[in-house]
């Protein structure tokens, strides 16, 4: 008998936010140590949870991108959703794909220039293979009342219709026992989510459907409301900012290579980096301006700061999250073990 470790945020109130279904976080290294397949690990944990739950498994030795196209030190390997102790056989489980390096890939997805500079020895694991998944549009798993969507960054309850936003950088903090912020998603992040990059195996949208510099939301003044009301568990801003600085130091340009989200733009201007306005659509500029990130704001002659200074002042520099409260991960998750 082995013991499989996992972390769980149980369904219900978590400090000041409501978690609509249990969220489970599993380390792929622990699964391998128990000689289980990824699906078996999810099923064994699911058997102990009677209510709706989502499962996100991470390989912390791999890399992937967040929705801005910023690369991070860890990636999901699979996602699942369970209810009544079971995972739906058709729709409840989905694995992510490893993408091999090629010059063609970097040409088509230039944000991945970061890969060999920031994480040269790591496997790149992106979203699921569109040809394998059984639902037509979203990268989602579903069982009963539980939904785990957009490659495990949104968990939603299909009866109460309540939702939780889990940006992957926040989940990486959960895996690392780091620091997170809880609050409301708010207007700024709602707009920022729309500033995507094109990826063949995108964790949110496949087939390079959206070009960097455009807005996936493309809905004008309505974009800021799309996710604003949803509770969020995000990385502590001092941690998020490290990834953005690291990306910008590799030479990627906001609005051309990586998404010109408010968070990216807020860091870039203190590093003296301007977005590629010529490559950005008017719709994306309008959505940014609608939440205060006008061209005048983006190009303002602000104080140039070192990376260390930006990290130290991250909470002042990075916008977003309504009523944010900072927590150590140990105050947010429970660590549990099951015998397998």
């Amino acid at each position, binding site marked *: 008998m082995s013991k499989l470790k996992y972390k769980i945020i149980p369904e219900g109130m978590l400090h000041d936010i409501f978690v609509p279904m249990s969220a489970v976080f599993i380390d792929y290294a622990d699964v391998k140590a128990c000689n289980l397949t990824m699906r078996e690990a999810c099923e064994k944990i699911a058997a102990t949870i009677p209510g709706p739950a989502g499962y996100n498994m991470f390989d912390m030795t791999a890399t992937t991108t967040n929705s801005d196209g910023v690369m991070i030190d860890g990636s999901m390997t699979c996602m699942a959703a369970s209810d009544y102790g*079971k995972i*739906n056989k058709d729709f409840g489980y989905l694995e992510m794909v490893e993408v091999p390096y090629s010059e063609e890939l970097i040409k088509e997805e230039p944000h991945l220039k970061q890969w060999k500079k920031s994480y040269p020895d790591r496997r790149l694991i992106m979203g699921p293979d569109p040809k394998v998944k059984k*639902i*037509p*549009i*979203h990268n989602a798993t*579903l069982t*009963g*009342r539980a939904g785990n969507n957009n490659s495990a960054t949104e968990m939603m309850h*299909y009866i109460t219709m309540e939702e939780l936003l889990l940006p992957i950088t926040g989940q990486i903090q959960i895996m690392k026992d780091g620091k997170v912020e809880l609050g409301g998603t708010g207007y700024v992040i709602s707009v920022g989510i729309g500033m995507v990059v094109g990826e063949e195996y995108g964790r949110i949208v496949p087939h390079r459907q959206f070009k960097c510099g455009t807005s996936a939301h493309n809905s004008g003044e309505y974009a800021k409301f799309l996710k604003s009301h949803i509770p969020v568990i995000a990385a502590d801003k001092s941690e998020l900012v490290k990834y953005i600085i690291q990306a910008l130091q590799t030479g990627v340009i906001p609005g051309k290579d990586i998404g010109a989200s408010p968070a990216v733009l807020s860091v870039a201007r203190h590093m003296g980096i301007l977005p590629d306005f010529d490559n950005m659509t008017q719709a994306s500029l309008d959505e940014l301006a609608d939440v205060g990130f006008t061209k005048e704001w983006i190009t303002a002659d602000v104080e140039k700061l070192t990376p260390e200074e930006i990290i130290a002042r991250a909470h002042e520099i990075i916008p977003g999250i309504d009523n944010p409260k900072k927590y150590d991960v140990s105050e947010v998750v429970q660590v549990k073990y099951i015998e397998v």
Partner: protein
Amino acid sequence: MKLMHTKLPEFIRKMKVAAATKGSTYKECEVVGLENLKTAKMQSLRTGRIEQAVEDLAKMEDVYRVEVAVIPRIPESMHSAIVRGFDKDGNPVHAVLETINILHPTEDVLIHDCPDIDDRRPPIGNH
């Protein structure tokens, strides 16, 4: 015959007839999930099989009523949103077509507490 389709009202009537007549006593059958459809053609091959399923349950002595819930087999469905503007006389004068993808609960919400389940559906992709 495989390609023929059944009218929606006929589909509903067939289910009610099967439940009402095939058991040892009269049993009610409610068809739910199709309320939003005013007109539709229902796959005949499957109509017969669902009638058979209703009959099978109606014949069971511990069954007092039957329900046929029709939900999307794939729990994400893509729809068109037809946004139309009408003039003062009620004639459509402008339209915008958009899509909206809808995620639904899976069948587990209806069967999780049912002790006897006979899944007669073909595998996805094999319909």
